[in-house]
């Protein structure tokens, strides 16, 4: 009856962006783009929806607040629970990938008649 909810790709990368230390909203956007090889450009509305859900789930928490040029910059930090969830997700994806990659050489071998 328990439904296993996988992390969506944006959420996964938002969590991953915080692994090396706290970042503010704009910093997260840049880091996500960098980590995804430029394939994931989050809208600000999408990012803050994700941060709200992740805060509620206890995966992320607010860090320090800075005022830069009169604008608020709040940093977000990955919690221990968030780090565990992200790690479990990465392991699950690696296992799923292995189902395919482990079979690839044999399939390729059959295909080439070796």
């Amino acid at each position, binding site marked *: 009856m328990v439904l296993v909810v996988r*992390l969506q790709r944006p959420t996964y990368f938002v969590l991953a962006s915080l692994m090396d230390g706290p970042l503010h909203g704009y910093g997260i*956007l840049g880091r996500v783009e960098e980590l995804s090889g430029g394939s994931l450009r989050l809208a*600000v*509305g999408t*990012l803050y929806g994700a941060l*709200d859900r992740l805060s509620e*789930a206890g995966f992320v928490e607010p860090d320090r607040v800075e005022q830069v040029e009169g*604008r608020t910059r709040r940093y977000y930090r990955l919690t221990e629970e968030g780090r565990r969830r992200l790690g479990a997700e990465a392991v699950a994806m690696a296992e799923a990938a292995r189902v395919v990659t482990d079979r690839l050489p044999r399939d390729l071998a059959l295909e080439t008649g070796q």
Partner: protein
Amino acid sequence: VTAQLERRYGRLLGVYPPAFRDRYGPEMLAALLHTADVGRKWPSARETAAILGGGIRQRALQQVGDPSARGALRSGLLLGAFLGLGVQMAMCLQRWNHDWTAQVAPITDEPQSQLMVWVWATALIAAVTQTQSARRVAVAATSVLAVGTWLYTVWPKSTLYYPSNWAVEIIPLATGLLLPAALLSWQRDDIGEHRRSSLLVALAGPAMVGLAIGITPESLTDAIALPAYFLLVGVAVLLAVADPRLAVATAVAILPLALVQVGHAVFPRQDIDVGAAGLAGFIAFVSPFALVGAFSWLGLRLWSKATTT
């Protein structure tokens, strides 16, 4: 960065509920202006779409307070509401099919069931609206439409007059009055309110769907809709087994149907004799499922978006 752009983004952020805006507004504005192209005066389409979608979603989320019950009720109600609209539209379509084949006795209630689609839509707007004044307007409109529709069906000189059993006809009226009552006392999700609001949400869900489908009970007694009803129950049971949240949704969608069926069992009616044959009959049989399927799919998509962290 232009002052115009800042003002426009600021106004756009107003679609978020106040609590969310107080918490994230300033940083969002900073990030929006930081990522904007030089010289831009209007919000980008991409950011606008994300803010509008996020704002509507946040407002819908705030309707249910208790975080543990929130996911289940929210997704269940959403799916149930979509099922309800699907069933209502299916019934309109089925009626239209009957009309087309001229095999049904007088069709007096088609405008009525179309009207109920609007009642349902008003109720949904009331349910997702956060501001108390907007909700009051929607609730008032729902009440007037529900009572007005009912009065029209029982007033012998009206074009919608339809001789029927008071016990069956009273169900849509009762749900029509229960819905506004539930919506009006449906509080914002302040701490301590969630128990009461959860209960009222649970009441409002069946009421909404009751409004949507209870008004056309005769279609449940005809040769086509009866097997459809039992198939629907079968599908509902399968869905409910798959996930507890779907149990909420199916309960919401099925309860009014069951009430109407009980009403018919207790007070049988002899004036309905409906049947369609051939291709028309096939279309009439299949179309409700296609619509229910389409709306379930849509509801499920929204549901998975709402529950995936």
